[in-house]
């Protein structure tokens, strides 16, 4: 909680919102002693602002300034009281429901959902009409009409916390359920309690003003709502007395706005994704170093020359890929290995210029068939993506668009790179699905109807749709079980034989990579420490980091007896691949 407050204080939104709210709280506390009695009839009705009455007079001749200032007190008091009460009710009901589960949960959740769909104002009016008048009535009515939303939010939070270790520990230690709820669960919801309280106060002020405007408040009291009620009753509009209702409305809006700012600030602190990330300034690309000017070896499909990638952070640029150079020949399988954070995925994304806005390529060149990818403009880049280089994501399962059928996703892709009809695109999709070993009827299926392995196959089919020269595979099989993984890789190698595309295979699984690739690059801390053929790396790796990586897979020392025989077999056939590649690629 303390940490949360400290981070909040550093935020501009929180500072502005907090100051406005604090100002009104002070006004509500001391203001009433500084102004005249708001109920006194001090002048003629509907007088415009003057030196005697800064905000003019009401339809009954009361001082508008005094009414506005005094109105703050009861409005805010009831607002905070209802805000606290609603939060407490919601938290208790929601946490009980979420923590106890089963029957209790079913009943409480159903009740909560029913109260959620019953509109609050009409319910509050019926309740209010039958209860005796007074501030107490307002608190009861607003709490009863407004608790449900909180119960729902707190239930979800309690469900998430219930399975955490410290709660289980408390349970094993024999603490009572009530004690666990009060001592373990609620304190861990401090930030949720805080933001709910703010949200509920916002609701309470708005609803209270609305009910009082209807005449359901104590019309004798001075609150912001009754001020507006009397403004309506005394025909402020008809007499063109804008000063009667404008000050109160502006005060309500300022309080509401300050609460909105505070809750949005809390959201941003607890959910950093909402805060705009730093964007890389388009840095002046440093002049190419001499090695970058060196012409790529003739025959290379892809050449990386001194590629650097930097992320803009709040503490300045951070280099995640540092002067990486390597080549991939047509039809070659190039493996890129390294632990997480070594920059291997970033490098893969860079080939398609898919880096997030915070990342930039300040230096180096990425040449594909002689075209500098880093220099492409928007239109050229779109045409280049997928038709030249495509990609299979580790998360192909979640990468497919859940609301489009597979056929439509193929159609989108084909249509973006040339004219095609829907029927033609679907026919091509069927062909591609068959190619990766899926039933062609799946063209009309939605992604959620497929298993993880099937979706990964769709990802591969999609990557081959435009017959690209290079397919980047970023941990394409990591999330799959071993059997599915093996089948899939065999299929990829077969297709590679047939179509002749080159593969950049990125994974942390070095044995797999050695079995699969012609050549392997080892990435450590953004630097390419070693590049060599798979055979040579297996037996005499030079860089100590490579040897460390190799030794962490003990079975490799025994001349990779553990490598799946059929994958190795397929891999050994690849030597013929570059020859067919020239004909197959287009």
């Amino acid at each position: 909680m303390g940490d949360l407050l400290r981070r909040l204080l550093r935020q501009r939104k929180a500072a502005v919102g907090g100051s406005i709210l604090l100002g009104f709280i002070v006004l509500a506390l001391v203001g009433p002693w500084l102004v005249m009695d708001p109920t006194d009839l001090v002048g003629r009705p509907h007088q415009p602002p003057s030196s005697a009455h800064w905000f003019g007079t009401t339809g009954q001749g009361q001082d508008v300034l005094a009414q506005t200032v005094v109105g703050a007190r009861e409005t805010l008091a009831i607002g905070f009281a209802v805000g606290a009460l609603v939060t407490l009710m919601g938290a208790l009901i929601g946490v009980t429901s979420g923590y106890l589960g089963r029957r209790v949960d079913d009943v409480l959740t159903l009740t909560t959902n029913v109260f959620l769909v019953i509109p609050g104002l009409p319910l509050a009016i019926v309740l209010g009409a039958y209860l005796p008048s007074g501030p107490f009535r307002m608190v009861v009515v607003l709490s009863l009409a407004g608790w449900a939303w909180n119960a729902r939010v707190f239930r979800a939070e309690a469900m998430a916390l219930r399975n955490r270790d410290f709660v289980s520990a408390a349970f094993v230690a024999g603490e009572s359920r009530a004690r666990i709820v009060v001592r373990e669960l609620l304190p861990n919801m401090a930030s949720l309690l805080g933001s709910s309280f703010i949200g509920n106060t916002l609701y309470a002020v708005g609803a209270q003003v609305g009910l009082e405007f209807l005449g359901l408040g104590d019309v004798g009291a001075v609150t912001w709502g009754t001020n507006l009620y009397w403004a309506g009753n005394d025909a402020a509009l008809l007499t063109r007395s804008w000063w009667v209702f404008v000050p109160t409305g502006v005060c309500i809006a300022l309080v509401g706005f300050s609460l909105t700012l505070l809750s949005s600030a809390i959201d941003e602190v607890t959910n950093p994704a909402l805060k705009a990330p730093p964007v890389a300034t388009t840095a002046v690309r440093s002049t190419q170093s001499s090695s970058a000017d060196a012409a790529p070896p003739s025959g290379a499909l892809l050449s990386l020359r001194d590629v650097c990638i930097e992320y803009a952070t709040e503490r300045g640029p951070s280099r995640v890929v540092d002067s990486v150079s390597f080549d991939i020949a047509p039809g070659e399988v190039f493996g890129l290995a390294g632990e997480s954070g070594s920059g291997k995925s970033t490098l893969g994304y860079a080939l398609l210029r898919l880096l997030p806005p915070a990342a930039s390529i300040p230096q180096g060149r990425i040449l594909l068939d002689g075209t500098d990818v880093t220099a492409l403009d928007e239109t050229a880049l779109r045409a280049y993506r997928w038709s030249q280089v495509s990609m299979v994501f580790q998360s192909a399962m979640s990468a497919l668009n859940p609301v489009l059928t597979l056929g439509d996703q193929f159609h989108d892709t084909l249509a973006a790179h040339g004219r095609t009809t829907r029927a033609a695109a679907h026919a091509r999709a069927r062909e591609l699905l068959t190619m990766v070993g899926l039933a062609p009827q799946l063209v009309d299926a939605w992604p959620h109807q497929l298993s993880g392995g099937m979706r990964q196959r769709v990802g591969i089919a999609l990557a081959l749709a435009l017959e690209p020269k290079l397919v980047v595979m970023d941990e394409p099989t990591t999330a799959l079980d071993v059997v599915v993984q093996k089948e899939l890789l065999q299929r990829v190698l077969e297709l590679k034989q047939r179509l002749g595309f080159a593969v950049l295979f990125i994974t942390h699984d070095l044995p797999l990579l050695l079995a699969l690739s012609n050549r392997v690059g080892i990435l450590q801390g953004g630097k390419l420490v070693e590049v060599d053929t798979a055979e040579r790396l297996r037996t005499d790796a030079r860089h100590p980091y490579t040897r460390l990586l190799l030794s962490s897979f003990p079975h490799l020392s025994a001349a990779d007896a553990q490598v799946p025989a059929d994958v190795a077999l397929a891999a050994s056939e690849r030597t013929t691949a570059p020859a067919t590649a020239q004909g197959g690629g287009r």
Partner: protein
Amino acid sequence: MAYVLRRLGFYLLAAWASLTLNFVIPRLAPGDPASAMFARFEGRVQPEAMVALRAAFGFTEAPWYVQYATYLKHLLRGDLGLSYAYYPARVSEVIGTGLLWTLGLAGCAVVISFTVGSMLGVLAAWNRGGWLDATVAPALAFLGAFPYFWLAMLALYLFGFGLGWFPLRHAYSHDLEPALSFTFAADVARHAFLPAASIVGATLGGWMLSMRNTMVATLGTDTLRLAHAKGLPPRQVMLRYAARNALLPNVTGFGMALGFVLSGSLLTEIVFSYPGTGYLLILAVRNQDYPLMQGLFLTITFAVLAANFAVDLLCLWLDPRTRAHG
């Protein structure tokens, strides 16, 4: 299909719960508000009508479950009793026309506001940190902090009383007979403009912000990364891949917020003396017309439940995953 039936079952349960609340609240209230309520009819109503009225609300000497059964029986026949304020009109007749105006006004305003707000949210998230995101969003949020009815008062003051561009009250001019003609429709539109505009103004910022936030989250997903990788045109990525997915949670949120927005629009009606249920509600409160008040509570609640069901069906249509789990 099972999903639809489950949702329908839930709304029926919610409807029953609101019926029962309506039955219980007057009986739990301290003092004897029921007697007070019927006392208001004394002298205006024939004794036999009085008995019928008590029966309609189930206020008889019988035990509570018999009262409850009578109450339900009358409700099933659509009998909500007699209005005090509009005596001798039946509550159901009084509410009937009012409900049409409310649904027309609030319905249009809410749909316009949600559509425009969501589109603004999509654009704000797509051009994050741009002028829409940095200027329009906070400005609309500030506008949204005003009570709906206060914005209505201001709009009426400025454009009705001040500039005289729009009519000051009611849903159509008194010299016109309601008819299916262009003149009448134009007149209704002119009368609805200010109330609808103030509801839109008050709610636009909320829809924009929530769409913006889900859209920002969607933009960071792998679905979007794949869409970009495939070289799709930006407009297609924005609408078909990002907005289409970000819309789903917002439509659910739209259903949740309906009751709240409707409450606000009821207050707006009062400012414009718009002859909808909100205007009837304040008449009921001022005249302590309990039968009308309770009838309005039930009608408005049922309307919101029906709207929520419609939103569920919309979600079903929008999201193939819901269809599958059904």
